[in-house]
């Protein structure tokens, strides 16, 4: 069965501490100013009737990735388990993918290529979890294979109330937010 890597982000557990962001930066040796993950806070209402959602966000590793379609050189591609990746040697830094991504998940690396989250595929292939998942002190992040109905990520997305960001984008994102 073809793997479909996905992530469930439990917004009830996440405190937005940024541990995921920092662990990602060191694991992937990201340059200063470059982020593959970030924290979003969304507040609604007026004092004192407030609500807030905190989300640890990253590339949604879409099943229909507009960035891959937009890439003129074939650098952006779909890799193992449906992870959207960039082949650095093929990337000219034209930013067509950056413009086409509905999630702002990509940035231009100072060395000229576009960079983004890979679900730490280099770790996953070795049987490890993505760095953000491993460090998360609230265990808000669950990574796994959505194609495997027995996986925790599949179970969570079945049993909990789930949303995706910008469902109307047509991109079919694979990061699910548990609310």
């Amino acid at each position, binding site marked *: 069965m073809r793997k479909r890597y996905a992530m469930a982000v439990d917004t009830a557990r996440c*405190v937005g*501490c940024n541990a995921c962001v920092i662990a990602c930066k*060191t694991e992937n040796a990201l340059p200063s100013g470059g982020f593959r993950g970030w924290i979003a806070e969304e507040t609604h209402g007026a*004092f004192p009737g407030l609500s807030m959602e905190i989300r640890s966000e990253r590339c949604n590793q879409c099943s229909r990735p507009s960035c891959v379609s937009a890439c003129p050189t074939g650098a952006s591609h*779909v*890799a193992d388990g449906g992870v959207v990746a960039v082949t650095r040697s093929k990337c000219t830094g034209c930013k067509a993918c950056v413009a086409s991504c509905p999630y702002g998940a990509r940035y231009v690396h100072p060395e000229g290529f576009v960079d983004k989250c890979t679900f730490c595929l280099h770790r996953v292939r070795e049987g490890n979890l993505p760095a953000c998942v*491993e460090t998360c002190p609230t*265990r808000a992040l669950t990574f796994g294979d959505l194609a495997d109905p027995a996986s925790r990520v599949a179970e969570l997305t079945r049993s909990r109330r789930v949303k995706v960001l910008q469902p109307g984008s047509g991109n079919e994102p694979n990061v699910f937010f548990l609310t």
Partner: protein
Amino acid sequence: MTLTRRKFIQIGGAAAGGAALASGLTTRWWGLDADRVEDPATDGDRVVASYCELCFWGCGVRAHVKDGRVTKVVGNPDHPLSRGMLCPRGAGATGLLYDPDRLRRPLVRTQKRGEDVFEEVSWDAALNRVGEGLLEVKRRHGPEAVALFTHGSGGTWFKHFMKAWGSPNVGAPSYAQCRGPREAGYLLTFGTPLGSPEPIDLANARVITLIGSHLGENMHNTQVQDLAEAVGRGAELVVVDPRFSVAASKARYWLPIKPGTDIALLLAWMNVMLAENAYDAEYLAKHAVGLEELRAHVADKTPEWAYPITGLRPELIRDSARLIASARPASLVHPGRHTTWYGDDTQRARAMAILSALLGSWGRRGGYVSHAKLSLPPYPVTAEPPHGGKGAADRPKKGGFPVATEVIASGLCDASVSGQALYDLKAWLIYGCNLMQALPDRRQTVKALEGLDLVVSIDVLPAEICGWSDVVLPEATYLERDDDIAAPAYKRPFLAVRQEVVPPLHDSKPGWWIAKELAGRVGLAEHFPWKDAREYVDARLRAGGHDVARARETGVVLGREVATCEEEGLAVEVPHESGKIQLRSEELAKLGFDPLPQYYPHEEPPPGQFRLLMGRAPTHTFGRTVNNRLLAEPYPENEVWVNADVARALPGFAQPLEDGERVFLVNQDGARSGPVRAKVTQRIRGDCVYLVHGWGQTAKRLGYAYGRGASDSALVTRYAVDPIMGGTGMSVNFVRLERAERSA
């Protein structure tokens, strides 16, 4: 197919592509570049276990070293406090290690104190200078005239130095400027302070009540893990905070209380629980004294009474009280940590402790539990420390603060101005704490500093206090040094070792070396008989019967989980000498304080001014991490939180204050902050503003942090002293906002 995924990938792009196409996918490049996902190659060729010092929680880490460089620091799965997970600060340790602004060589002051002008000298010259200075102070004023301010695990070497030297004046701002009132309040009620990590069972609590604690932003790793675990299991939160904190956003009830009125709310909650018989009567009959006095005391403290004081609707007070009581005894009133707010903080902690007693949560699962320590004998030192010197000089001449159980750091500062205490202090050793921001009222700190004979800082970075020192000794970061063993009490007792991951950069030295060298220069070498910290630690581990090699490999020595509460077979024990929980405190009555907590109104900000509140961000530990470029990326500077409705019509503002605009804060005494961004938000009451502590650094050599954001400390020119234990309540300052000129 029996091939593993990895082998499958290794077969090559063409085969992988073929398989993918066969599975019916339409994306053009599916699989063709499968093995072109870059491996950043940050896994170490060596991995060294240690424990973290980015804050003081002491989480276990594993540091990856590749080609002599630390590439990443991750959580140690074997360590009971990190359990393999690190907070952002812990994960950002390389930002400290490779901070370009680190102190590189010993410095000796060449201009006036505070002008921050130094020349680099050799270690020998610097240590000789310190040794001579200390001996001169000792000759003229006695050894007690030297004080040590310390924070962090490396401080043990300098505490040992002070013991050998013969001074009791060893203080940490983490007591009287932070958790001290809580320690006193729980000591008076249950007979023991709480210490760190706090013996609370967050994970099993069914209701968690936070009084001003903003756990989640306040990033004590294990507690945040347990909080999330509890939330995951369906625990409800009750959050009392003038600010809609992250925790408040997850709460069943958020009580946006008027600052300074927490005691009124706590009394009203007790009123409801007592009136509705929702408390644990059987437990109290067995374990507590003073119930009838408490009942009489709170009889008129109804939610209706508390409403005009706290601004909280009576039904909100009642409903939240019922929820809290419904989960007893697994209803945890979190004791908080930074508790020096208004000067009556011990009494607030007492009220929280009494509430916990009503819930029967002391000694019970999901409440306050019992932790244990592993055996760890001291290193055998044959030299006797001096006996019979003076007591600490941290109290005023006329005495005071009878319940303080630790030295009051602000009292040491006071004693450094001539004639304030029983005797004067003449020299400061400062280990790892920036007193310019840790102590209240910077003017007093400066006055004390100006009168001292000798000021010595031991630090990793050129903190503000270094600029006020005569000699600055550059310490290695925790990743470059060995330190003493961490041996906290915990439900799974453990020991953790700190060990050098990479050799010290620049000309920095580990604290143990600095203390030992200093001891040698003042005739105390015999008190430091160990070759180095490694030998010291190994000797202690061996003496405790622990496996040294395994400890060094895994970073920890693990004991067996102990029974922590009644549900696990441990009888409820109240360590108070009476054996009973003191709902009414006879001890306080004898000392002339209220035996039951009373609500007294605090001064309120005049129109146009706001109470200044301060707190934490999860990415930062006070001012210690604000120069860390890695941590600065997600959190580059602090912001002043201003209520959005108030921001529309601020006094002196022709137009509404916009989110992101810069303002100055000016306090009641005219103290001004630097320009700071405004966070205009609905998430805070209109009578207060909020800053994350640690920013607005004035040390020019902090290349990143200098001048960024606003310093709450600089605006704390006023403080309210807790008469019971000497804590300095700092949330008593009022600020107005001034629009900063838009920068060109």
